């Protein structure tokens, strides 16, 4: 008999959900996490620490950058947050010559759910039909209606603050009260609507509690305090992380065992039963190798983490990687492209300011190619942004010194508004990861070799993004608007997806409509690796909905004796 009913690999955004669902349904659940344990509160070492408490006043020092050349590229990396970023030294990977990829990772219980910016936008029917519509990639095996109830389900538990807008391309969800647009954002919104009624400026939808439910309070979670220092961890449990929400929910059932410091190396396949029997692991602290067995395995190690394990799980049946008769494993890797948009000044309104640090911004949902491709590129993009009055960090740049100079900085700077695009990336077979033939990580596991680049469609889209960001801000009443379109590196969107895509045909996809391997029925992949296209919305809420849906399916199958 197997040791467990289910093994979940990874304890981040998706693994936490799998753990909660299986444990709450009474299954004996094992969560394997390669990183260290993280306890809510106690391990939030950066929380509540003022700038002057840090040796380098909460910056990223040259030494930190030298030690972590990849992680330090992330905007959120600094003294107070670095403990939730992986150490580059422990997580080496290789990239194809002539390409670059910045692999931003978490390496602890909670994964990157501790670090995320909490933006949570549903996909729409358009997104699930996009591949079919324009022929890039294979058709999704599910439609919006299949996932909608699961969005409802996860959103109610997660707690998403947002406003209902009735937009078909960005379906409304189960929201807690929205955060507030500030005075200038409202002005800009109203002015844009005059010129571009289809460009809607709305408040960001963010995984923050603004009106906690009984269920959330019972888990020790409380309302957002508007500190905007979330990536240090939040003892209020006000933003969603697996550490604050799903893992405690799983733990209180007493059906879950979570084993940290345990890296899964491979999935063990039994050709006689055509099923996986378990996983082989290495303890990163002791080097001990162990095999755990289970009836069902859920892969939630993050897109590339899961792919590394699957590519490493070769056998006579699957010589090129686990459940890979389609040859799609490791292919069709996507990210979102960003670092393109515009910024400008908003004149006047100098008697207006804000109090509190809103930990989220504004959103302009996709407005391009909604019905058909009327642009010279496929798919679309959304904008994130906000209006702000900068403080000393910017006002110090004025001339002068002395009391007048100091006093001038008591005044906040004038209003500034910015929009940053997040664009969809097409699925392309040659954008792929493989295992490096010789290089290994410190634990002896073959390194990923990453060969992914943005293409012509992304390049064309970016020109449009810069252009529309500028004209949108100008329509909103901004002056001195400057568009930007900076070089961007794949991976820095931190929305890497694909590699084990869902699809209808076992010959062209790895997973079926239930995130279940076509080739091996008791192995599921529910993290970003399962994505068939990338849409332009931040993807984590979709991973969560897919995970809860797949867990429900698996449990039903197990109860019926089919799994």
């Amino acid at each position, binding site marked *: 008999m197997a040791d467990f009913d289910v093994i979940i690999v990874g304890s981040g955004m998706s693994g936490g959900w799998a753990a909660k669902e299986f444990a709450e349904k009474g299954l004996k659940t094992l969560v394997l996490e390669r990183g260290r344990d993280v306890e809510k509160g106690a391990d939030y070492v950066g929380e509540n620490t003022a700038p002057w408490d840090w040796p380098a006043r909460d910056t990223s020092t040259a030494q930190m950058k030298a030690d972590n050349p990849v992680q330090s590229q992330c905007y959120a990396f600094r003294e107070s947050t670095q403990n939730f970023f992986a150490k580059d030294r422990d997580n080496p990977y290789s990239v194809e010559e002539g390409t670059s990829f910045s692999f931003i990772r978490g390496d602890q219980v909670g994964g990157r759910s501790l670090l995320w910016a909490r933006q949570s936008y549903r996909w729409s029917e358009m997104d699930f039909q996009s591949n079919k519509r324009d022929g890039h990639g294979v058709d999704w095996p599910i439609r919006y209606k299949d996932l909608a109830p699961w969005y409802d389900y996860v959103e109610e538990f997660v707690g998403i603050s947002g406003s209902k807008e009735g937009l078909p391309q960005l379906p409304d969800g189960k929201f807690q009260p929205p955060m507030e647009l500030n005075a200038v954002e409202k002005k800009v919104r109203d002015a844009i609507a005059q010129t571009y009624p289809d460009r809607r400026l709305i408040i960001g939808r963010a995984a923050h509690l603004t009106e906690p439910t009984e269920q959330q309070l019972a888990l020790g979670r409380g309302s957002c305090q508007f500190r905007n220092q979330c990536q240090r961890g939040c003892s209020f449990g006000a933003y969603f992380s697996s550490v604050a929400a799903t893992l405690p929910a799983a733990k209180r059932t007493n059906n879950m065992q979570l084993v940290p410091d345990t890296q899964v190396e491979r999935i063990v396949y039994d050709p006689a039963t055509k099923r996986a029997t378990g996983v082989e692991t290495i303890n990163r602290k002791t080097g001990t190798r162990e095999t755990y067995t289970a009836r069902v395995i859920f892969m939630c190690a993050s897109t590339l983490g899961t792919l590394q394990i699957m590519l490493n799980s070769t056998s006579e049946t699957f010589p090129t990687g686990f459940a890979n008769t389609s040859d799609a494993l490791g292919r069709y890797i996507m990210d979102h492209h960003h670092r393109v948009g515009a910024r400008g000044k908003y004149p006047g309104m100098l008697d207006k300011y804000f109090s*509190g640090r809103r930990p989220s911004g504004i959103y302009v949902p996709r407005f391009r190619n909604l019905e058909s491709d009327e642009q010279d590129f496929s798919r679309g993009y959304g904008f994130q942004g906000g209006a702000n009055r900068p403080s000393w960090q910017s006002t110090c740049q004025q001339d002068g010194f002395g009391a007048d100079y100091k006093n001038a900085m008591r005044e906040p700077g004038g209003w500034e508004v910015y929009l940053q695009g997040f664009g969809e990336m097409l699925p392309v077979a040659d954008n792929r990861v493989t295992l490096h033939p010789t290089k290994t990580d410190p634990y002896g596991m073959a390194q990923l070799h990453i060969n992914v680049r943005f293409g012509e469609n992304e390049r064309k889209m970016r020109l449009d993004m810069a252009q529309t960001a500028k004209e949108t801000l100008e329509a909103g009443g901004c002056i001195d608007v400057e568009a930007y379109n900076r070089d961007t590196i794949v991976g820095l969107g931190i929305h890497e997806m694909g590699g084990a895509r869902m699809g209808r045909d076992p010959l062209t996809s790895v997973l079926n409509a239930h995130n279940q391997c076509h080739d091996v029925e008791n192995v599921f992949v529910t993290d970003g690796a399962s994505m068939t296209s990338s849409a332009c919305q931040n993807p984590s809420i979709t991973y969560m909905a897919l995970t809860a849906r797949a867990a429900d399916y698996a449990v039903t199958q197990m109860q019926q004796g089919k799994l």
Partner: protein
Amino acid sequence: MKQQKSAHPSRRDAIKGLFLATGGAASLPLMSALSACTPEIKQELSPYMELVSHVSEMILPQTDTPGALAAGVPAYIEALVGTHYTQDEREAFKTGLSVFDEMAHAKSAKSFLAAPHEVQTTILTALDQSGVAIWQQLKQAVVFGYYTSEAATEELRYDPIPGGYDGDADLSDIGRAWLTTGI
């Protein structure tokens, strides 16, 4: 997994978690490899510290709130230059500082520190206009050291745990710019 801490952390608990300042150095673009701030380096920098302190206080003087000296800015700059600068950067910093005395000599003063206050002010005004590198570097370090110090919580508005967001606040009710902006 370990036991969870208190289920409902209060605002007061969170504030209690704040620690006192330990001083230290900040990162500026110039910084490179971290090296230990040895007593020798402290010694090496000591002839320059009086000038650095004096100019710091001229950039951000005591008003009805603490100035650069009370905020510990010189110690911050000493740690910055002594701990985070490379040997070459440190040499360039020391050499760069000679511009103050050179300009004082041109105004027939023995040194910058010995010059009358109006002469010092004239020199700083000229430096500020010229945009010379050492001045920019020093001004930036003074500003950063000051506004990341605890003293700056008196100068600007500081609220570690706002508890809410008001997007339509009147500036007159808040009075001054916020000290911190979050991530």
